[in-house]
């Protein structure tokens, strides 16, 4: 049975003239890594708010259609319980920091404290997560005196620390340097290998294409495409709807316009190198 199921979901924010989501239907399975892409204002964050139950429980507005998580209708779900099952990393890293804690250490511990995790375990977990996210040197700093990227890493760490089965992650690398970005993807990959379900919104399509199992393309409130990464990205017409394509695909497209045809469209760097090497022999 599908883990999350949407059927003809239409949602309008309070006072908004137009719906932010239109007639969306899809099914998500447990244990998969979904990459959500698409142009800004298309509805990606709204989709996340829905998966986490913030719509309809926090944002009022008007919700039509049916949606279930683990068989339970979303309108009847207890969001407090849902919050212990689905970790949600907000889009804006500047608002995720609580502002009430004096050190990064306490900030990362906050979520676990709220879940009632024993103290010893919290300390252990904070240290482990800090190593994983490579922010050990920030643990004693004041969360309000961090650089933009450092904040984003702390926000990520504090949600990952809660070790939920499902993570909804909205643009976690927007403020990160290229190597920091790659390590976030490596961590997400690790989570996936622990059978976690991941829904990741991200513009950095080169990395999404490399790591995600499936893509969900959202635009103008609709699901424009959903499926296997190669299959979705073989349709260049999505470019006209504001979808970014991997540099590997764009390079092969540019080469084919110069008369070098390739049998398949590469989406990752290694595929691209492989294909070009064959030509060089």
């Amino acid at each position, binding site marked *: 049975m599908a883990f999350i199921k949407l059927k003809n979901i239409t949602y309008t924010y309070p006072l908004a003239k137009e719906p932010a989501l239109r007639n969306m239907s899809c099914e998500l399975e447990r244990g998969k890594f979904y990459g959500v892409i*698409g*142009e*800004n*204002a298309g509805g990606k*964050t709204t989709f996340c708010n829905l998966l986490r139950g913030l719509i309809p429980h926090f944002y009022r507005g008007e919700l039509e259609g049916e949606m279930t998580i683990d068989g339970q209708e979303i309108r009847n779900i207890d969001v407090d319980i849902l919050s212990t099952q689905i970790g949600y990393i907000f*889009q*804006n890293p*500047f*608002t995720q920091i609580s502002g009430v804690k004096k050190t990064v250490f306490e900030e990362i511990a906050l979520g676990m404290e709220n879940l009632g995790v024993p103290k010893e375990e919290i300390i252990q977990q904070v240290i482990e997560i800090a190593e994983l996210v490579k922010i050990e040197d920030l643990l004693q700093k*004041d969360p309000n*005196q*961090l*650089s*933009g*990227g*450092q904040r984003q*890493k702390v926000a990520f760490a504090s949600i990952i620390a809660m070790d939920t089965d499902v993570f909804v992650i909205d*643009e976690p690398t*927007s*403020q*990160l*340097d*290229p*190597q*920091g*970005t790659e390590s976030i993807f490596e961590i997400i990959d690790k989570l996936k290998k622990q059978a976690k379900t991941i829904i990741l919104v991200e*513009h950095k399509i*080169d990395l999404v294409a490399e790591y995600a199992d499936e893509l969900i393309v959202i635009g103008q409130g609709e699901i424009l495409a959903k499926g296997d990464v190669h299959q979705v990205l073989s349709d260049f017409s999505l*470019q006209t709807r*504001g*979808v*970014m394509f*991997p*540099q*590997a695909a*764009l*390079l092969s497209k*540019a*080469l084919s316009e*110069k*008369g*070098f*045809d*390739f049998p398949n469209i590469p989406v990752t*760097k290694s595929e*691209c*190198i492989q294909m*070009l*090497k064959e*030509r*060089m*022999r």
Partner: protein
Amino acid sequence: MEQIELKHVYFQYPNGYLANEDLNLTVKKGEQIAIVGQNGAGKTTAVKLMNGLHKPSKGEVIVDGKNTKKFTTAQIARYVGYVFQNPDDQIFNQSVYAEIAYMPKYYKMSASEIKNRVEESAALLKIESFLDKNPFEIPYVMRKFVTIAAILATKPQYIILDEPTAGQDLKGIEVLADLLKILKKQNIGTVTITHDMDFVANNFERTVVMANKRIIADGKTRDIFGEDDILRESKIKRTLAGEVAVELGMGKCILNIPDFLQEWSKLEVKDGK
């Protein structure tokens, strides 16, 4: 001299943390540079020194011949406009229009001049349709564009953009690339901090690299991306086309897809027909 100059600049935060060490940098009026480098390297700290939001703990910052220590931040900000990394640190008005109009009003410009400037700036960022919205109710990237428009409306001599590319989509990146071209024509100096290597490769001839509180490189973008040590130390990467070129033994000087096409056409390869 019309330029921003950092001379042996050090900066220490009030809590004692030393965030910049011995920065030396000159940005001429009309010039456009990118600043890249690892998170926490000190980029934001460094650019805040350029518009007087920070004053150096040691060393000097000279804007068009004037030492920033002798002027207030408000005085310098008229020359050097800074767009904050986090738009919420900058925005405080209840409508997008009021936010952009705020500084022109503060400078006591005529009503028609204010209106012109708001409309002109909003058009450059393609946010005309948001003018009557509350800035706190529009998406993050749009808020960022509001803050850029607000600084443009002051018509400064220099503009500093702190991570304008963060979270942008295809259209947003295009708007920013076009904006840079317009600023270039207007001979306005720009300093752009970004983690988007494609954006750097496609739009900047000069790149400054920071790591561990210092400037570790300053030069032609092409040369910077050719140096493995610099990339490693500052945690930046080549573009994908650049990385592919290195892997294929095509050299380290390929910046982006157009470069790649040019080099590829010189090789003897099977054309696939």
